[in-house]
């Protein structure tokens, strides 16, 4: 009985190894095949000029649009004749894109892309496990679980910043906050390592500055460790005890978990934080908010300018432009100035995580500001029919 179990174990280990490791063949791209893609959002229209219902649809639509439009200037000028063209579209459900033979940068390697919309994360991961799809985005917090279940996982460099921001309208008189001291006490109370280790399952990095270490090279100069003792000292100086309503996106489970964790940490420092789910149109009801900022460029200067523009609208911070050819020192000083205001409290850096089937080749996780490079991937498997011509 024991032997049989060992036999089964040995055989099953072999099968697991066979399925878990991607197949290796030679490297030059092959043409042909249909790439199956699943996304969580439901995209109602591919017209780039029409508005979207939420940020998730917006992000997904941007990715699909990049496949079918030749983007001349992002968000302003588009022409058709992208690497793919739409051959079928069911609003909010599915889209089929076919390779454009005369695309100016070369015909994509795959013949078509079949996009299924509205698939929740759990089902996307299951479909990856069952080889029912070739490509899907995975929430960072689910990446470890997916990898443990045999899904081939690809991660970008961390380029999305989850940040707590105090809104522009929050004035000490109105809310009873003693300004910078309350914000500093809250910032010092947050245990970022716990957010990364437990909520994100070690996916991502604690953030102290507004740029990740790989981009700026100076992120290590910003502390990411909690200082509960100093936080308590600061909050003790404020009477009455400060109360903060912290908003998070009602459809974002990660933001919810982080907001709840912040409330626990803040309580230790005698700051009362009340997490509250909010919809986009009701953002103004909270004192502070969790938001996600995605880097629009790998360049530290460009990324920081993009962030400061977004943050200026919410927090009222002055969006001073960096000098031309800003040096690393200029960039660091600008970051330091923003973070020292405690109106912006960086929390964690998140990578974008993708699940891939074993047959997807030449996949490179897109960098900051880049789109899914699906025109560059190719599918391992039987060669396209044309390639057989010479054998006849």
């Amino acid at each position, binding site marked *: 009985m024991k*032997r049989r179990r*060992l*036999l089964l174990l*040995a*055989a099953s*280990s*072999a099968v697991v*190894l*066979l399925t878990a*490791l991607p197949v*290796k*063949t*030679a*490297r*030059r*791209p*092959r*043409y042909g095949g249909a790439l199956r893609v699943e996304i969580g959002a439901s995209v109602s229209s591919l017209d780039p000029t029409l508005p979207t219902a939420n940020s998730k649809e917006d992000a997904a639509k941007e990715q699909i649009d990049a496949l079918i439009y030749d983007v001349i200037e992002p968000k302003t000028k588009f022409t058709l004749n992208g690497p793919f063209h739409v051959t079928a579209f069911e609003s909010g459900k599915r889209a089929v894109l076919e390779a454009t*033979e*005369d*695309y*100016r*940068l*070369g*015909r*994509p*390697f795959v013949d078509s892309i079949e996009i299924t919309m509205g698939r929740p994360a759990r089902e996307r991961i299951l479909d990856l496990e069952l080889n029912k799809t070739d490509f899907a985005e995975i929430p960072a917090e689910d990446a470890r679980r997916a990898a443990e279940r045999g899904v081939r996982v690809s991660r970008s460099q961390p380029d999305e910043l989850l940040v707590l921001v105090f809104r522009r309208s929050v004035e000490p008189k109105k809310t009873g906050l003693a300004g910078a001291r309350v914000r500093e006490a809250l910032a010092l109370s947050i245990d970022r390592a716990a957010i990364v280790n437990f909520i994100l399952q070690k996916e991502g990095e604690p953030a102290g500055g507004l740029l990740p*270490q*790989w*981009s*700026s*090279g*100076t992120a*290590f*100069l910003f502390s990411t460790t909690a200082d509960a003792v100093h936080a308590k000292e600061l909050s003790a100086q404020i009477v009455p005890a400060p109360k903060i309503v912290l908003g998070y996106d009602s459809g974002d489970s990660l933001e919810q978990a982080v907001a709840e964790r912040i409330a626990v940490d803040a309580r230790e420092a005698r700051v009362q934080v009340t997490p509250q789910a909010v919809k986009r149109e009701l953002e103004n009801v909270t004192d502070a908010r969790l938001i996600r900022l995605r880097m629009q460029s*790998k*360049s*530290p200067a460009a990324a920081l300018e993009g962030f400061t523009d977004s943050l200026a609208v919410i927090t009222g911070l002055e969006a001073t432009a960096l000098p031309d050819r800003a*040096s*690393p*020192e200029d960039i*660091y000083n600008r970051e330091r100035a923003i973070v020292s205001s405690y109106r912006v409290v960086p929390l964690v850096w998140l990578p974008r995580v993708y699940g891939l089937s074993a047959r997807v*080749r*030449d*996949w*490179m996780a897109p960098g900051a500001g880049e789109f899914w490079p699906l*025109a*560059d991937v190719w599918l391992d498997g039987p*060669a396209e029919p*044309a*390639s*057989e*011509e*010479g*054998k006849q």
Partner: protein
Amino acid sequence: MRHKSRICHPLQYAIALAVLIFSFQLIPTQIAHGQTPSTPSSQTSDQRVASPALPTAWSDGVKALAAKIAAAAKPARAISLEIKNISSLGPSDVEGIRKALEAELTSRGLRLGSSSVQVEVTLSENVESYIWVAEIRRGDDRRTAVASVEKGRTPNTTVTRQSVVLHRDLEWQQSRPIMDFLIPDVSPDGRPLMFVLEPRQIVSYHFEGGSWQSSGAFQISVPDHRPRDLRGLIDLVEDLFSFQMSDVRCDGGARRYFELTCSKNSWPAWPVNAGGEERGSVTMVQDRNYFGGDLAVYGEIDVTAPPFFSVAVMNHRDWADWILAELDGKSRLYEKSSKPVAEYVGWGDEIVSIATGCGTDWEVLVSGRGDWTESDYLQAYGTRHSASPLAISDPVEFPGPIMALWPSVDGKAARVVSKNLQTGMYEASKVTVTCSQ
């Protein structure tokens, strides 16, 4: 004993099977691990073997940082200095920087030792450059100084093993894609000459003052839409150059001036070179990245070839055989006919034959497996045992995929275009094969 052996028998089979399958899966993985790109540490260490001084950019960085530290430390005459490394620099690099920084600070009148002014230097890096940061603390006062330093180039590498030595010389690197490059043996004015074929132009360079200087460019009129995996090749027979790409070809003179005639969308035959002035020919399949159909090799052999990515021709006195790296990931050996006589697995898509005279007639250089997201290597195989060619060198590593591999004009070396995944630069290298001792 027999009883024990009988009990273990099925289990041994199962374990053996599992180990066998595991090994099959691991072989490429191990190779991939062996392809770890050269780190800046090895790069700079290698550079320093030839020259004990720091690279100029590093010396400049040290000077800039020292100046900032000295300014921030004033009026103190002594500082304590600590250096921390969180970049990809290796210990020998860090030691070199530390010594240079200490010397620079001392030359600025600062004494190093215990002091109330503490300076902690962190060697960091970002996506663009090395970032060297000094934190200067004096009591509660804390200042920060930053210097950025350009990252260096990939070194030349030599790999010795078994019966041949592979040596890679990095000739040129640039951010724009390189299709192929060529350094003719002789130039009209005696100055070394190099041509770099890019997707839309041919650029000529002359070697002057220790580096290649651009001396001319020829713009190529190209079709509106082009293959995504565009391929290119430069060939030279006597004084006639041929600059070939998937969808356009330019022929003519180029030694003194560009006197080229180009034809686009004509899908002309590509030359097949195995040394000497004789050329075979092969045709690229339209809008694709592979060849197929008519293949002419030496000894007046014309065959219909299956689709393939690259060919290695072994030209003998009165006959030739050839290996095709085919689309199914296997390479096959052919002798005089369209029927393969041997099949090789485990090779990449880029192969080229080199005549070195190291005991075997020809060596075949073979790229690694994987895809364009991984590092790569070239390894030499002997062709004497045609049924199962043996690796006769260690792999020479490339920090990114090999995009093009062609024989040199004399057939005794290989031209390699690769993409460095660490720097994003396209690198043109010459790989030579010499007999080991």
